[in-house]
Protein backbone atom coordinates (compact mmCIF):
# COMPACT_ATOMS: atom_id res chain seq x y z
CA UNK A 1 0.00 0.00 0.00
CA UNK A 2 2.75 2.35 0.98
CA UNK A 3 4.58 1.74 -2.26
CA UNK A 4 1.42 2.44 -4.23
CA UNK A 5 1.05 5.78 -2.57
CA UNK A 6 4.65 6.58 -3.31
CA UNK A 7 4.12 5.58 -6.88
CA UNK A 8 1.13 7.89 -7.24
CA UNK A 9 2.76 10.99 -5.85
CA UNK A 10 4.97 11.76 -8.84
CA UNK A 11 1.85 11.56 -11.04
CA UNK A 12 -0.04 13.91 -8.71
CA UNK A 13 2.93 16.19 -8.63
CA UNK A 14 3.14 16.13 -12.40
CA UNK A 15 -0.49 17.12 -12.72
CA UNK A 16 -0.07 19.80 -10.08
CA UNK A 17 3.01 21.17 -11.82
CA UNK A 18 1.18 21.24 -15.13
CA UNK A 19 -1.71 23.04 -13.48
CA UNK A 20 0.70 25.42 -11.83
CA UNK A 21 2.39 26.19 -15.12
CA UNK A 22 -0.98 26.80 -16.74
CA UNK A 23 -1.91 29.01 -13.84
CA UNK A 24 1.35 30.96 -14.11
CA UNK A 25 0.86 31.29 -17.84
CA UNK A 26 -2.75 32.48 -17.52
CA UNK A 27 -1.93 34.77 -14.65
CA UNK A 28 1.02 36.29 -16.42
CA UNK A 29 -1.20 37.00 -19.40
CA UNK A 30 -3.92 38.56 -17.30
CA UNK A 31 -1.39 40.62 -15.45
CA UNK A 32 0.97 41.72 -18.13
CA UNK A 33 -0.77 40.75 -21.36
CA UNK A 34 0.46 38.26 -23.86
CA UNK A 35 4.06 38.49 -24.96
CA UNK A 36 4.14 41.26 -27.54
CA UNK A 37 4.82 40.23 -31.09
CA UNK A 38 8.24 41.59 -31.93
CA UNK A 39 8.71 44.66 -34.09
CA UNK A 40 5.43 44.96 -35.98
CA UNK A 41 4.10 48.43 -35.09
CA UNK A 42 0.41 48.84 -34.49
CA UNK A 43 -1.30 51.97 -35.75
CA UNK A 44 -3.29 54.13 -33.37
CA UNK A 45 -6.66 53.35 -34.85
CA UNK A 46 -6.09 49.62 -34.46
CA UNK A 47 -4.69 50.07 -30.97
CA UNK A 48 -7.61 52.16 -29.76
CA UNK A 49 -9.00 50.63 -26.57
CA UNK A 50 -12.27 52.46 -27.12
CA UNK A 51 -14.02 54.36 -29.85
CA UNK A 52 -14.65 58.06 -29.37
CA UNK A 53 -15.58 58.80 -32.97
CA UNK A 54 -18.96 60.35 -33.64
CA UNK A 55 -20.92 63.36 -32.52
CA UNK A 56 -20.91 64.60 -28.93
CA UNK A 57 -22.78 67.39 -27.22
CA UNK A 58 -21.57 69.29 -24.17
CA UNK A 59 -23.94 69.25 -21.22
CA UNK A 60 -23.29 72.33 -19.12
CA UNK A 61 -23.80 71.34 -15.51
CA UNK A 62 -20.61 73.01 -14.30
CA UNK A 63 -19.35 76.57 -14.57
CA UNK A 64 -22.66 77.45 -16.23
CA UNK A 65 -22.25 81.13 -15.41
CA UNK A 66 -18.81 81.26 -17.00
CA UNK A 67 -19.57 79.11 -20.04
CA UNK A 68 -23.15 79.64 -21.19
CA UNK A 69 -22.86 83.40 -20.99
CA UNK A 70 -19.90 85.70 -21.30
CA UNK A 71 -18.91 86.48 -17.73
CA UNK A 72 -18.32 89.98 -16.52
CA UNK A 73 -14.94 91.59 -16.86
CA UNK A 74 -12.74 90.66 -13.91
CA UNK A 75 -14.73 87.58 -12.97
CA UNK A 76 -12.02 84.93 -12.84
CA UNK A 77 -13.35 82.86 -9.96
CA UNK A 78 -11.93 79.31 -9.76
CA UNK A 79 -8.89 80.04 -11.97
CA UNK A 80 -5.56 80.00 -10.08
CA UNK A 81 -4.16 83.14 -11.68
CA UNK A 82 -0.87 84.81 -10.90
CA UNK A 83 -0.83 88.53 -10.21
CA UNK A 84 0.17 89.06 -13.84
CA UNK A 85 -2.69 86.85 -14.95
CA UNK A 86 -5.18 88.91 -12.97
CA UNK A 87 -3.76 92.12 -14.37
CA UNK A 88 -4.16 90.86 -17.93
CA UNK A 89 -7.68 89.64 -17.21
CA UNK A 90 -8.66 92.99 -15.79
CA UNK A 91 -7.48 94.62 -19.00
CA UNK A 92 -9.72 92.51 -21.25
CA UNK A 93 -10.91 94.51 -24.22
CA UNK A 94 -13.09 92.53 -26.66
CA UNK A 95 -13.25 95.49 -29.05
CA UNK A 96 -9.48 95.39 -29.34
CA UNK A 97 -9.57 91.68 -30.05
CA UNK A 98 -12.14 92.23 -32.76
CA UNK A 99 -10.08 95.02 -34.27
CA UNK A 100 -7.06 92.72 -34.36
CA UNK A 101 -9.01 89.86 -35.88
CA UNK A 102 -8.40 87.81 -32.73
CA UNK A 103 -12.01 86.83 -32.02
CA UNK A 104 -10.94 83.20 -31.62
CA UNK A 105 -8.82 83.83 -28.52
CA UNK A 106 -11.37 81.97 -26.35
CA UNK A 107 -11.56 79.04 -28.76
CA UNK A 108 -7.97 77.78 -28.54
CA UNK A 109 -7.09 74.23 -27.51
CA UNK A 110 -7.02 74.90 -23.72
CA UNK A 111 -10.56 76.32 -23.87
CA UNK A 112 -12.42 74.81 -26.79
CA UNK A 113 -13.50 71.60 -25.05
CA UNK A 114 -15.08 73.77 -22.36
CA UNK A 115 -17.04 75.91 -24.83
CA UNK A 116 -20.69 74.86 -25.19
CA UNK A 117 -21.25 73.15 -28.50
CA UNK A 118 -20.94 69.90 -30.34
CA UNK A 119 -17.85 68.08 -31.51
CA UNK A 120 -17.39 65.55 -34.27
CA UNK A 121 -14.53 63.10 -33.80
CA UNK A 122 -13.16 61.21 -36.80
CA UNK A 123 -10.07 59.37 -37.93
CA UNK A 124 -8.28 61.14 -40.79
CA UNK A 125 -5.97 58.17 -41.21
CA UNK A 126 -4.69 55.34 -39.05
CA UNK A 127 -2.55 57.69 -36.95
CA UNK A 128 -4.42 60.98 -37.09
CA UNK A 129 -7.60 61.89 -35.28
CA UNK A 130 -9.60 65.03 -35.95
CA UNK A 131 -11.97 66.87 -33.63
CA UNK A 132 -14.26 69.36 -35.32
CA UNK A 133 -15.95 71.79 -32.94
CA UNK A 134 -18.96 73.69 -34.17
CA UNK A 135 -18.30 76.47 -31.66
CA UNK A 136 -15.98 78.82 -33.46
CA UNK A 137 -15.70 76.30 -36.32
CA UNK A 138 -12.44 75.05 -34.87
CA UNK A 139 -10.53 71.92 -35.91
CA UNK A 140 -8.14 70.05 -33.66
CA UNK A 141 -5.77 67.48 -35.14
CA UNK A 142 -4.34 64.82 -32.85
CA UNK A 143 -1.19 63.16 -34.15
CA UNK A 144 -0.24 59.70 -32.95
CA UNK A 145 3.06 57.96 -33.59
CA UNK A 146 6.23 59.65 -34.68
CA UNK A 147 4.70 62.88 -35.96
CA UNK A 148 6.91 65.95 -35.81
CA UNK A 149 5.77 69.54 -36.04
CA UNK A 150 6.73 71.49 -39.11
CA UNK A 151 7.09 74.61 -36.97
CA UNK A 152 5.76 77.88 -38.29
CA UNK A 153 3.51 80.38 -36.60
CA UNK A 154 1.62 79.09 -33.55
CA UNK A 155 -2.04 78.41 -34.17
CA UNK A 156 -5.09 78.49 -31.87
CA UNK A 157 -5.16 74.68 -31.70
CA UNK A 158 -1.39 74.23 -31.45
CA UNK A 159 0.42 70.96 -32.11
CA UNK A 160 -1.17 67.95 -30.44
CA UNK A 161 0.66 64.68 -29.83
CA UNK A 162 -1.64 61.82 -28.86
CA UNK A 163 -1.05 58.38 -27.41
CA UNK A 164 -3.04 55.58 -25.90
CA UNK A 165 -0.49 54.56 -23.37
CA UNK A 166 -0.07 55.70 -19.85
CA UNK A 167 1.67 54.82 -16.64
CA UNK A 168 -0.99 53.14 -14.57
CA UNK A 169 -0.26 53.21 -10.84
CA UNK A 170 -1.42 49.84 -9.69
CA UNK A 171 -1.33 48.00 -6.43
CA UNK A 172 2.18 46.65 -6.31
CA UNK A 173 3.82 49.43 -8.27
CA UNK A 174 3.74 51.24 -11.56
CA UNK A 175 2.79 49.20 -14.58
CA UNK A 176 3.51 50.45 -18.07
CA UNK A 177 0.61 49.82 -20.35
CA UNK A 178 1.86 50.29 -23.88
CA UNK A 179 -0.34 50.83 -26.93
CA UNK A 180 -2.59 47.97 -27.93
CA UNK A 181 -1.57 45.93 -24.93
CA UNK A 182 -4.33 43.63 -23.89
CA UNK A 183 -4.84 42.60 -20.30
CA UNK A 184 -7.27 39.83 -19.64
CA UNK A 185 -8.45 40.10 -23.22
CA UNK A 186 -9.24 43.78 -22.81
CA UNK A 187 -7.36 46.62 -24.45
CA UNK A 188 -6.29 49.21 -21.91
CA UNK A 189 -5.06 52.73 -21.85
CA UNK A 190 -6.39 56.24 -22.04
CA UNK A 191 -6.22 58.73 -24.84
CA UNK A 192 -3.64 61.23 -23.68
CA UNK A 193 -3.02 64.39 -25.68
CA UNK A 194 -0.26 66.93 -25.12
CA UNK A 195 -0.58 70.21 -26.95
CA UNK A 196 2.05 72.92 -27.30
CA UNK A 197 2.99 75.66 -29.76
CA UNK A 198 -0.29 77.49 -29.27
CA UNK A 199 -1.15 81.05 -30.07
CA UNK A 200 -1.84 82.84 -26.74
CA UNK A 201 -5.51 83.01 -25.92
CA UNK A 202 -8.16 82.92 -23.24
CA UNK A 203 -9.21 80.16 -20.86
CA UNK A 204 -12.51 81.96 -20.53
CA UNK A 205 -14.39 84.29 -22.78
CA UNK A 206 -13.74 87.30 -20.55
CA UNK A 207 -10.03 87.44 -21.12
CA UNK A 208 -8.58 85.00 -18.55
CA UNK A 209 -5.26 84.40 -20.32
CA UNK A 210 -2.90 81.60 -21.20
CA UNK A 211 0.47 82.36 -22.70
CA UNK A 212 2.41 81.09 -25.70
CA UNK A 213 4.38 78.87 -23.35
CA UNK A 214 1.34 77.06 -21.97
CA UNK A 215 1.30 73.28 -22.14
CA UNK A 216 -2.03 71.52 -22.35
CA UNK A 217 -2.40 67.91 -21.22
CA UNK A 218 -5.69 66.10 -21.72
CA UNK A 219 -7.06 62.67 -20.87
CA UNK A 220 -10.12 61.37 -22.69
CA UNK A 221 -12.11 58.74 -20.79
CA UNK A 222 -15.29 56.98 -21.79
CA UNK A 223 -18.15 55.58 -19.74
CA UNK A 224 -21.16 53.62 -20.84
CA UNK A 225 -24.10 53.85 -18.47
CA UNK A 226 -26.90 51.43 -17.70
CA UNK A 227 -29.28 54.09 -18.99
CA UNK A 228 -27.78 53.64 -22.45
CA UNK A 229 -25.96 56.97 -22.39
CA UNK A 230 -22.31 57.14 -23.35
CA UNK A 231 -20.20 59.92 -21.86
CA UNK A 232 -16.83 61.32 -22.78
CA UNK A 233 -14.98 62.79 -19.78
CA UNK A 234 -12.09 65.05 -20.71
CA UNK A 235 -9.68 65.94 -17.92
CA UNK A 236 -7.75 69.06 -18.90
CA UNK A 237 -4.58 70.32 -17.27
CA UNK A 238 -3.15 73.67 -18.31
CA UNK A 239 0.36 74.45 -17.14
CA UNK A 240 1.34 78.06 -17.63
CA UNK A 241 3.81 79.50 -15.12
CA UNK A 242 3.34 82.98 -16.56
CA UNK A 243 -0.36 83.32 -15.79
CA UNK A 244 -1.20 80.36 -13.53
CA UNK A 245 0.22 79.72 -10.07
CA UNK A 246 -0.59 76.01 -10.23
CA UNK A 247 -1.82 73.59 -12.91
CA UNK A 248 -5.38 74.52 -13.86
CA UNK A 249 -7.39 71.28 -13.76
CA UNK A 250 -10.91 70.91 -15.04
CA UNK A 251 -12.90 68.00 -16.39
CA UNK A 252 -15.61 68.36 -18.96
CA UNK A 253 -18.27 65.89 -20.02
CA UNK A 254 -19.80 65.26 -23.43
CA UNK A 255 -22.79 63.08 -24.22
CA UNK A 256 -22.77 60.84 -27.27
CA UNK A 257 -25.26 61.68 -29.97
CA UNK A 258 -26.54 59.14 -32.48
CA UNK A 259 -26.19 61.61 -35.34
CA UNK A 260 -25.34 65.20 -36.27
CA UNK A 261 -28.50 66.67 -34.76
CA UNK A 262 -27.94 70.21 -33.58
CA UNK A 263 -24.62 70.58 -35.42
CA UNK A 264 -24.37 74.31 -35.82
CA UNK A 265 -21.01 75.73 -36.94
CA UNK A 266 -20.62 79.30 -35.80
CA UNK A 267 -17.84 81.84 -36.20
CA UNK A 268 -15.74 82.91 -33.22
CA UNK A 269 -17.19 85.70 -31.15
CA UNK A 270 -15.09 87.93 -28.93
CA UNK A 271 -17.90 88.85 -26.56
Amino acid sequence: MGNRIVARRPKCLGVATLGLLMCISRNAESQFGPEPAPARPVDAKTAAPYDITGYWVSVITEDWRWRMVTPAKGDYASVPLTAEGRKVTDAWDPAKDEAEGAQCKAYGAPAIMRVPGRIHVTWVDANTMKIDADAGSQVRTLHFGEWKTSGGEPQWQGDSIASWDEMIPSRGGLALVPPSREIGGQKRGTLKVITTHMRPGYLRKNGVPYSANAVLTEYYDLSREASGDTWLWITTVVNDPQYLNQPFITSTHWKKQPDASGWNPTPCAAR
Partner: protein
Amino acid sequence: MMNQKRPANSMKAAGMLPIVLFALLGTQAFAQVDLSGEWAGRIHNDAPERGGGPDIGDFTGLPINAAARMRAESYNPSLLTVPVWQCRPHPADYMGGRAGFNIRFTPEIDPSTQQLIAWHARAAWMAQERTIWMDGRPHPPEEARHTWQGFSTGKWEGNVLTVTTTHLKMGFLRRNGVVRSDRAVLTEHFFRHGDMLTVASIVEDPAYLTEPLPRSVSYVLDTAQQMAPYPCEAVVEIPREDGVVPHYLPGTNPFLTEFATKHNLPLDAVKGGAEKLYPDYQKRSRETAITAK
Protein backbone atom coordinates in the same frame (compact mmCIF):
# COMPACT_ATOMS: atom_id res chain seq x y z
CA MET B 1 16.42 4.28 -2.07
CA MET B 2 15.57 6.71 -4.80
CA ASN B 3 11.93 5.77 -4.61
CA GLN B 4 11.92 6.43 -0.90
CA LYS B 5 13.48 9.89 -1.33
CA ARG B 6 11.06 11.01 -4.02
CA PRO B 7 8.06 11.09 -1.71
CA ALA B 8 9.92 13.39 0.65
CA ASN B 9 10.81 15.79 -2.18
CA SER B 10 7.31 15.53 -3.54
CA MET B 11 5.90 16.46 -0.16
CA LYS B 12 8.14 19.53 -0.04
CA ALA B 13 7.15 20.51 -3.55
CA ALA B 14 3.51 19.94 -2.79
CA GLY B 15 3.89 22.07 0.32
CA MET B 16 5.21 24.88 -1.79
CA LEU B 17 2.23 24.78 -4.11
CA PRO B 18 -0.23 26.61 -1.87
CA ILE B 19 2.36 29.32 -1.22
CA VAL B 20 3.01 29.81 -4.92
CA LEU B 21 -0.69 29.71 -5.74
CA PHE B 22 -1.50 32.26 -3.05
CA ALA B 23 1.25 34.48 -4.38
CA LEU B 24 -0.17 34.21 -7.86
CA LEU B 25 -3.68 34.93 -6.70
CA GLY B 26 -2.40 37.95 -4.87
CA THR B 27 -0.73 39.39 -7.94
CA GLN B 28 -4.00 39.36 -9.86
CA ALA B 29 -4.95 42.45 -7.94
CA PHE B 30 -1.92 44.30 -9.39
CA ALA B 31 -3.82 44.79 -12.63
CA GLN B 32 -6.19 47.07 -10.72
CA VAL B 33 -5.48 50.75 -10.42
CA ASP B 34 -4.34 51.85 -7.01
CA LEU B 35 -6.43 54.59 -5.42
CA SER B 36 -4.87 54.44 -1.97
CA GLY B 37 -3.42 57.54 -0.42
CA GLU B 38 -4.24 61.13 0.36
CA TRP B 39 -5.98 63.12 -2.37
CA ALA B 40 -6.32 66.89 -2.34
CA GLY B 41 -9.32 68.35 -4.08
CA ARG B 42 -8.87 70.98 -6.78
CA ILE B 43 -11.67 73.48 -6.95
CA HIS B 44 -11.05 74.95 -10.39
CA ASN B 45 -14.68 75.14 -11.38
CA ASP B 46 -17.68 76.64 -9.61
CA ALA B 47 -15.41 77.76 -6.77
CA PRO B 48 -17.87 80.29 -5.30
CA GLU B 49 -20.53 77.60 -5.01
CA ARG B 50 -18.29 74.80 -3.82
CA GLY B 51 -16.30 76.99 -1.47
CA GLY B 52 -18.15 79.77 0.29
CA GLY B 53 -21.52 78.64 -0.94
CA PRO B 54 -23.93 79.28 -3.78
CA ASP B 55 -26.13 82.29 -4.20
CA ILE B 56 -29.75 81.93 -3.24
CA GLY B 57 -31.77 81.37 -6.39
CA ASP B 58 -28.87 80.07 -8.50
CA PHE B 59 -30.19 76.86 -9.99
CA THR B 60 -28.15 77.09 -13.20
CA GLY B 61 -26.74 73.87 -14.62
CA LEU B 62 -29.23 71.62 -12.84
CA PRO B 63 -31.85 69.53 -14.69
CA ILE B 64 -34.38 70.01 -11.90
CA ASN B 65 -38.12 69.64 -12.16
CA ALA B 66 -40.83 71.96 -10.83
CA ALA B 67 -41.02 70.16 -7.48
CA ALA B 68 -37.29 70.60 -6.87
CA ARG B 69 -37.50 74.25 -7.88
CA MET B 70 -40.41 74.97 -5.56
CA ARG B 71 -38.64 73.31 -2.69
CA ALA B 72 -35.42 75.20 -3.39
CA GLU B 73 -37.24 78.50 -3.60
CA SER B 74 -38.61 77.92 -0.10
CA TYR B 75 -35.12 77.39 1.30
CA ASN B 76 -33.92 79.73 4.00
CA PRO B 77 -30.19 79.42 4.83
CA SER B 78 -30.98 80.15 8.47
CA LEU B 79 -32.00 76.52 8.50
CA LEU B 80 -28.32 75.71 8.98
CA THR B 81 -28.36 77.42 12.38
CA VAL B 82 -30.91 74.96 13.74
CA PRO B 83 -29.00 72.55 16.00
CA VAL B 84 -30.17 69.42 14.23
CA TRP B 85 -28.74 70.77 10.97
CA GLN B 86 -25.42 72.05 12.27
CA CYS B 87 -23.51 68.79 12.17
CA ARG B 88 -25.41 67.33 9.27
CA PRO B 89 -22.89 65.80 6.82
CA HIS B 90 -23.06 65.81 3.07
CA PRO B 91 -23.96 62.55 1.34
CA ALA B 92 -21.67 60.58 -0.95
CA ASP B 93 -22.66 62.33 -4.14
CA TYR B 94 -21.83 65.76 -2.72
CA MET B 95 -18.89 64.71 -0.59
CA GLY B 96 -16.65 63.21 -3.24
CA GLY B 97 -18.39 64.20 -6.42
CA ARG B 98 -18.98 67.88 -5.94
CA ALA B 99 -17.41 69.46 -2.90
CA GLY B 100 -13.94 68.16 -3.61
CA PHE B 101 -13.08 67.78 0.06
CA ASN B 102 -9.68 66.25 0.71
CA ILE B 103 -10.04 62.49 0.73
CA ARG B 104 -8.08 59.50 1.93
CA PHE B 105 -8.50 56.13 0.19
CA THR B 106 -7.54 52.99 2.09
CA PRO B 107 -7.88 49.48 0.71
CA GLU B 108 -9.26 46.69 2.84
CA ILE B 109 -7.47 43.49 1.90
CA ASP B 110 -8.44 39.99 2.89
CA PRO B 111 -5.43 38.79 4.92
CA SER B 112 -5.54 35.24 3.62
CA THR B 113 -6.35 35.72 -0.07
CA GLN B 114 -4.95 39.23 -0.45
CA GLN B 115 -7.97 40.09 -2.51
CA LEU B 116 -9.48 43.56 -2.32
CA ILE B 117 -12.62 43.53 -0.18
CA ALA B 118 -13.39 47.22 -0.10
CA TRP B 119 -12.14 50.75 -0.54
CA HIS B 120 -12.62 53.06 2.41
CA ALA B 121 -12.81 56.76 1.70
CA ARG B 122 -12.59 59.36 4.42
CA ALA B 123 -13.51 62.94 3.68
CA ALA B 124 -12.12 65.72 5.80
CA TRP B 125 -15.32 67.70 6.25
CA MET B 126 -17.54 66.24 8.98
CA ALA B 127 -15.17 63.25 9.10
CA GLN B 128 -17.30 61.12 6.85
CA GLU B 129 -16.31 57.52 6.19
CA ARG B 130 -17.50 55.74 3.11
CA THR B 131 -17.13 52.11 2.11
CA ILE B 132 -17.11 50.84 -1.47
CA TRP B 133 -17.54 47.10 -1.43
CA MET B 134 -15.46 45.29 -4.06
CA ASP B 135 -16.28 41.71 -3.14
CA GLY B 136 -19.34 41.32 -5.30
CA ARG B 137 -21.92 41.51 -2.54
CA PRO B 138 -25.41 42.60 -3.61
CA HIS B 139 -27.13 45.81 -2.64
CA PRO B 140 -29.57 45.47 0.27
CA PRO B 141 -33.31 45.39 -0.32
CA GLU B 142 -35.06 48.67 -1.01
CA GLU B 143 -36.47 48.96 2.48
CA ALA B 144 -33.04 48.76 4.12
CA ARG B 145 -31.70 51.72 6.07
CA HIS B 146 -30.57 54.81 4.16
CA THR B 147 -27.41 56.56 5.31
CA TRP B 148 -25.42 59.66 4.38
CA GLN B 149 -22.92 57.64 2.39
CA GLY B 150 -25.39 55.04 1.17
CA PHE B 151 -24.46 51.56 0.08
CA SER B 152 -21.74 51.41 -2.56
CA THR B 153 -20.44 48.57 -4.67
CA GLY B 154 -17.56 48.85 -7.11
CA LYS B 155 -16.21 46.96 -10.07
CA TRP B 156 -13.26 47.42 -12.36
CA GLU B 157 -13.98 48.27 -15.96
CA GLY B 158 -10.52 48.16 -17.47
CA ASN B 159 -8.52 50.77 -15.57
CA VAL B 160 -11.65 52.46 -14.30
CA LEU B 161 -13.37 51.88 -10.98
CA THR B 162 -17.12 52.16 -11.46
CA VAL B 163 -19.19 52.52 -8.30
CA THR B 164 -22.93 52.27 -7.84
CA THR B 165 -24.50 53.77 -4.74
CA THR B 166 -28.03 53.37 -3.46
CA HIS B 167 -29.72 53.86 -0.09
CA LEU B 168 -28.67 57.48 0.24
CA LYS B 169 -30.39 59.87 2.58
CA MET B 170 -31.84 62.94 0.99
CA GLY B 171 -29.17 65.61 0.58
CA PHE B 172 -28.18 68.77 -1.23
CA LEU B 173 -27.30 68.82 -4.91
CA ARG B 174 -26.50 72.45 -4.31
CA ARG B 175 -26.27 74.09 -0.92
CA ASN B 176 -28.98 76.60 -1.63
CA GLY B 177 -31.87 74.27 -1.14
CA VAL B 178 -31.71 72.15 -4.29
CA VAL B 179 -32.09 68.62 -3.00
CA ARG B 180 -31.71 65.11 -4.25
CA SER B 181 -34.17 62.53 -2.97
CA ASP B 182 -33.44 59.29 -1.13
CA ARG B 183 -34.61 57.39 -4.21
CA ALA B 184 -31.63 58.52 -6.26
CA VAL B 185 -28.95 56.27 -7.66
CA LEU B 186 -25.38 57.52 -7.90
CA THR B 187 -22.94 56.14 -10.48
CA GLU B 188 -19.29 57.14 -10.25
CA HIS B 189 -16.26 56.49 -12.41
CA PHE B 190 -12.81 56.90 -10.90
CA PHE B 191 -10.24 57.72 -13.60
CA ARG B 192 -6.67 57.80 -12.36
CA HIS B 193 -4.02 59.48 -14.50
CA GLY B 194 -0.68 59.37 -12.74
CA ASP B 195 -0.99 61.58 -9.69
CA MET B 196 -4.36 62.93 -10.77
CA LEU B 197 -7.76 61.47 -10.07
CA THR B 198 -10.92 62.48 -11.87
CA VAL B 199 -14.14 61.39 -10.20
CA ALA B 200 -17.02 61.52 -12.63
CA SER B 201 -20.46 61.15 -11.12
CA ILE B 202 -23.95 60.80 -12.51
CA VAL B 203 -26.99 61.25 -10.28
CA GLU B 204 -30.34 59.87 -11.38
CA ASP B 205 -33.27 60.97 -9.26
CA PRO B 206 -36.83 60.17 -10.28
CA ALA B 207 -38.18 62.60 -7.71
CA TYR B 208 -36.35 65.83 -8.54
CA LEU B 209 -34.39 65.49 -11.80
CA THR B 210 -35.77 65.22 -15.31
CA GLU B 211 -32.55 63.71 -16.65
CA PRO B 212 -29.28 62.38 -15.23
CA LEU B 213 -26.97 64.97 -13.67
CA PRO B 214 -23.32 64.44 -14.69
CA ARG B 215 -20.55 66.27 -12.84
CA SER B 216 -16.89 65.67 -12.05
CA VAL B 217 -14.23 66.61 -9.54
CA SER B 218 -10.44 66.55 -9.79
CA TYR B 219 -7.99 65.47 -7.12
CA VAL B 220 -4.20 65.49 -6.92
CA LEU B 221 -2.20 62.95 -4.91
CA ASP B 222 -0.71 64.70 -1.89
CA THR B 223 1.62 62.51 0.11
CA ALA B 224 2.09 65.27 2.71
CA GLN B 225 -1.59 65.76 3.38
CA GLN B 226 -2.62 65.56 7.02
CA MET B 227 -6.30 65.07 7.64
CA ALA B 228 -7.36 66.78 10.84
CA PRO B 229 -10.15 65.50 13.09
CA TYR B 230 -13.50 67.15 12.54
CA PRO B 231 -15.37 67.26 15.82
CA CYS B 232 -18.77 68.88 15.52
CA GLU B 233 -21.00 69.87 18.39
CA ALA B 234 -24.41 71.41 17.89
CA VAL B 235 -25.21 74.49 19.94
CA VAL B 236 -28.07 76.95 20.10
CA GLU B 237 -26.91 79.74 17.80
CA ILE B 238 -30.24 81.51 17.58
CA PRO B 239 -32.84 80.95 20.30
CA ARG B 240 -36.11 79.87 18.74
CA GLU B 241 -39.34 78.40 19.93
CA ASP B 242 -39.54 74.64 19.60
CA GLY B 243 -40.64 73.49 16.18
CA VAL B 244 -39.66 76.64 14.30
CA VAL B 245 -38.02 75.77 10.98
CA PRO B 246 -36.71 78.71 8.94
CA HIS B 247 -38.29 78.71 5.48
CA TYR B 248 -40.15 80.81 2.94
CA LEU B 249 -43.62 79.97 1.81
CA PRO B 250 -44.04 79.75 -1.98
CA GLY B 251 -43.84 83.13 -3.61
CA THR B 252 -42.46 84.95 -0.55
CA ASN B 253 -38.69 84.52 -0.86
CA PRO B 254 -37.38 88.06 -1.48
CA PHE B 255 -33.85 86.92 -2.40
CA LEU B 256 -34.54 84.81 -5.46
CA THR B 257 -33.71 87.57 -7.92
CA GLU B 258 -30.40 88.66 -6.41
CA PHE B 259 -28.22 86.21 -8.30
CA ALA B 260 -29.74 87.02 -11.67
CA THR B 261 -29.48 90.73 -11.02
CA LYS B 262 -25.89 90.55 -9.83
CA HIS B 263 -24.77 88.71 -12.96
CA ASN B 264 -27.07 90.38 -15.44
CA LEU B 265 -28.95 87.19 -16.25
CA PRO B 266 -32.63 86.82 -17.13
CA LEU B 267 -34.60 85.37 -14.25
CA ASP B 268 -35.68 82.44 -16.36
CA ALA B 269 -32.05 81.49 -17.05
CA VAL B 270 -31.23 80.93 -13.39
CA LYS B 271 -34.22 78.73 -12.62
CA GLY B 272 -32.48 75.64 -13.94
CA GLY B 273 -34.01 72.90 -16.03
CA ALA B 274 -32.65 70.40 -18.53
CA GLU B 275 -33.28 72.56 -21.58
CA LYS B 276 -30.79 75.13 -20.29
CA LEU B 277 -27.91 72.66 -20.13
CA TYR B 278 -27.42 72.40 -23.87
CA PRO B 279 -25.65 74.65 -26.38
CA ASP B 280 -28.92 75.35 -28.14
CA TYR B 281 -30.00 77.35 -25.10
CA GLN B 282 -26.89 79.48 -25.43
CA LYS B 283 -27.90 80.34 -28.96
CA ARG B 284 -31.34 81.36 -27.76
CA SER B 285 -29.92 83.33 -24.86
CA ARG B 286 -27.58 85.18 -27.19
CA GLU B 287 -30.59 86.22 -29.15
CA THR B 288 -31.93 87.75 -25.95
CA ALA B 289 -28.61 89.57 -25.52
CA ILE B 290 -27.16 88.03 -22.38
CA THR B 291 -23.72 89.53 -22.28
CA ALA B 292 -21.36 90.97 -19.77
CA LYS B 293 -21.64 94.53 -18.60
